[in-house]
C-alpha cells in the first residue's frame, strides 16, 4: 500500500471519526482556533507596522544620503554629546561637495527651523521653514503642484520667495490662490511662487506643513548663523550606492581637513539605517509576541493530544481489527496523525477566517495591519504541524498496540 493511498484512506477515516464526534472535535479545535488567531494577528500587526513604516520612510528616498553632524541612531548619550562637539556643516562644504562629487546627481544643503507664519490676519504655527536650493527638488522627491520651485537665480540673489506645502496653503489662504501673495516669516516678507504637491504623513507629522525658501535668504532673514543642518546628496546610480557613499565620505573628510588617523567628524545617514533600526525593533516585538502567542497554540496542541489519546483509547478494538486485517504500524500511525492534523487544519482555517475579519477591524479602527499570503501559508503550516506533533504520541501508542490485546478490549 503506497503512501498516497494510505494518506487518502487516512483522511477518509479521520473525516469519518470527526463527523462521528462533532461536538468533541469542535471543542478540541477551539484551542487551535485561538492559537492560530493570536499568532496570525500578531503576524498581521507586525506586517502592517512594517509596511506602514516603509511607506513612511519612503519619502526619505533610498538613494539619498543625509550628511550631518549627528548620526540618526545614537548608541548612547555620550555619543550624542561628542557629536554635538563636532564642527558644524557649512554651506561652503555643500558647495565643494556639489563641485567635486562625480557619483552624485544632486547636492542640496538644508537648514530648517520651526516657526509661525502670517498672512494678513491669519497665522499658522509650527510650520517647518526649510532653507535649501533648487537641488532640493531632486533630493527630497517633492513635486510642485502649482507655480514653480526655487531656481538657481533665487539662490544667487537671495530672493525672498517661497514654495509652500499644501497644508500651509489651505491653512493660510483657504480658497484663494496663494501664488503671487506675500506671507510673513519671522517678520520678513516672502513672495509665494509655488505650492507643493500633497505628501502625507511621516511618523505622524505632516510633510505638507512646510515652507521652502532659498537658503541664502533663510540664513540671512530667519536663521542668522552661517551653519546649516545637513547636506542631502542624491546618488546618480542606485546600483552603486556604496561607491557613491564612499566617495562622499572621502570628499567630506578632505573638505573638513581630517588627517588619515582622525575619525569622521560627520555622519552619513540613509533611509536604510532607519529601516534596519526599525526592523530590529519590530523583530524583538515579533519574537516576544510570537513566544507569548504560541503559548496559546501550545495549549491548543495539548488539548489535541488529550483528545487524541481519548480517541485512540476508545477505538482500541477498531485498531485491533484493522491490525488483524493487515494494517501495518505505519498505516495506523498515519491514520491517527491525519486525524489530528485534520482537526488542527480545520481549526487553523477557522482561526484564519477570524483573524482575517479581525485584521480588517483593526485596520479600520486602530492601526495598519495586514494579512500577507506568507502569514496565511505559515498559519496553515503551523496548524498542521501542531496537529502532527501533538498527535504523534497518541498515534504512536495506537500503532504499537498488540493486536491480541487490542482485540480483547471492550
Amino acid at each position: 500500500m503506497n503512501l498516497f493511498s494510505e494518506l487518502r484512506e487516512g483522511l477518509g477515516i479521520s473525516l469519518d471519526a470527526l463527523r462521528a464526534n462533532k461536538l468533541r472535535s469542535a471543542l478540541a479545535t477551539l484551542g487551535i482556533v485561538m492559537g492560530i488567531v493570536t499568532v496570525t494577528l500578531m503576524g498581521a500587526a507586525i506586517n502592517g507596522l512594517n509596511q506602514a513604516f516603509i511607506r513612511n520612510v519612503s519619502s526619505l528616498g533610498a538613494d539619498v544620503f543625509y550628511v550631518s553632524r549627528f548620526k540618526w541612531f545614537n548608541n548612547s548619550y555620550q555619543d550624542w554629546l561628542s557629536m554635538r562637539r563636532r564642527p558644524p556643516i557649512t554651506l561652503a562644504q555643500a558647495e565643494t561637495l556639489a563641485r567635486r562629487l562625480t557619483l552624485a546627481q544632486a547636492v542640496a544643503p538644508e537648514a530648517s527651523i520651526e516657526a509661525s507664519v502670517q498672512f494678513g490676519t491669519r497665522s499658522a504655527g509650527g510650520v517647518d521653514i526649510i532653507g535649501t536650493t533648487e537641488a532640493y527638488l531632486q533630493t527630497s522627491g517633492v513635486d510642485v503642484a502649482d507655480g514653480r520651485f526655487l531656481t538657481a537665480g533665487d539662490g544667487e540673489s537671495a530672493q525672498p520667495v517661497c514654495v509652500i506645502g499644501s497644508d500651509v496653503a489651505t491653512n493660510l489662504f483657504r480658497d484663494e490662490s496663494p501664488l503671487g501673495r506675500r506671507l510673513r516669516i519671522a517678520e520678513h516678507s516672502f513672495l509665494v511662487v509655488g505650492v507643493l504637491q500633497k505628501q502625507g504623513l511621516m511618523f505622524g507629522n505632516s510633510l505638507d506643513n512646510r515652507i521652502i525658501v532659498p537658503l541664502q535668504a533663510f540664513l540671512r532673514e530667519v536663521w542668522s548663523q552661517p551653519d546649516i543642518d545637513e547636506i542631502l546628496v542624491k546618488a546618480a546610480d542606485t546600483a552603486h550606492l556604496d561607491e557613491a557613499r564612499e566617495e562622499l565620505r572621502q570628499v567630506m573628510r578632505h573638505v573638513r581637513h581630517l588627517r588619515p588617523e582622525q575619525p569622521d567628524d560627520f555622519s552619513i545617514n540613509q533611509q536604510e539605517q532607519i529601516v534596519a533600526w526599525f526592523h530590529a525593533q519590530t523583530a524583538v516585538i515579533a519574537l516576544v509576541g510570537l513566544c507569548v502567542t504560541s503559548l496559546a497554540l501550545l495549549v491548543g496542541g495539548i488539548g489535541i493530544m488529550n483528545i487524541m489519546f481519548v480517541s485512540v483509547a476508545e477505538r482500541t478494538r477498531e485498531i485491533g481489527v484493522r491490525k488483524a486485517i493487515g494494517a501495518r504500524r505505519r498505516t495506523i500511525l498515519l491514520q491517527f496523525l491525519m486525524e489530528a492534523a485534520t482537526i488542527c487544519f480545520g481549526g487553523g482555517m477557522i482561526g484564519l477566517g477570524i483573524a482575517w475579519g479581525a485584521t480588517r477591524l483593526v485596520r479600520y479602527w486602530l492601526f495598519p495591519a495586514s494579512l500577507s499570503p506568507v502569514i496565511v501559508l505559515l498559519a496553515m503550516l503551523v496548524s498542521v504541524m501542531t496537529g502532527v506533533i501533538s498527535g504523534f504520541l497518541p498515534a504512536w501508542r495506537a500503532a504499537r498496540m498488540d493486536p491480541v490485546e487490542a482485540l480483547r478490549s471492550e
Partner: protein
Amino acid sequence: MTLIRLQNISRRYRMGGETVHALRDVSLEIRRGEYVAIMGPSGSGKSTLMNLLGCLDTPSEGSYELNGVRVSEMDDDQLAEIRNREIGFVFQTFNLLARANALHNVELPLIYAGVPVHERRRLAREALARVGLADRLQHKPNELSGGQRQRVAIARALVNQPSLLLADEPTGNLDSRTGNEIMALFDELSRLGNTILLVTHEEDIARHAHRIIRLRDGRIASDEAAQSPRTTFRGADGANPGGNRQRMVE
C-alpha cells in the same frame, strides 16, 4: 499439501511475577482444504493457539510455517502482511467497523493490500454476493441483523482469498437458527475447498468440522476425525456431550 506446520511450539507469558505456560510443546499439521475444530475449556490454550495460527502473536519457542513460509520469527509489519494475504478472520463479536457500510468493511483488507479502488469495489461486491448480501452493500452494521453482520464479516474474511479461514466462536453471539445458517455457510465454503479452522467450545458446532483437536493445559489432548453429526460423540478425554456442556457453563 501441508498448509500449517507447527513444531514444538511453546508460548509463555509473564503475568506479574509469574510465568504462565499457555502452550507447551505443541506440534501440529493441517493440510490445505481441511475443516478443523479446535476445542478446549477456558485456560486450555485454545485462544493462544488461535492467536499464533492467526499470526497475531509469535511463539516463545518452536517454529510455525504457514503456506511454506516461516512466520514464527517475523516482525510486526511482516506479520501484518501475512495476515492480510493469508488469513481471514471471523470473530465472535463480528468486529465490523461501526461507521463504515458493509461494502467498505469488506473492502478494508483490499485497501491494506493496495488493490486499486475499482478492482476492490468489484471484489467486495462479489464477496458480499457470495454470502447472500448483494442487496445490503450500503447498510451500516447497526442496520443489519446479527446473522447478516457475521456474513459481512465472512465476506471480509474471504475477499482476499486467504489460505486460511480462522473463525473464533463464530456463532457465539447468534441464536441457534442463525448460528446454523452461518455454519451451513462454513460447510459450503469448506466444500468449495477453503481451509477452515474453527475455535469453539460447542460440540454441536465442532461436529461440523472434519477433524477435532482438543486442548488441555496447553497441550493437545486429542486430535481425531470428527464423527458425523448423527453419531454419538465421545471425546478423547472420555467426557460425553453432556459433560462437555457442563464444563462449558463454568
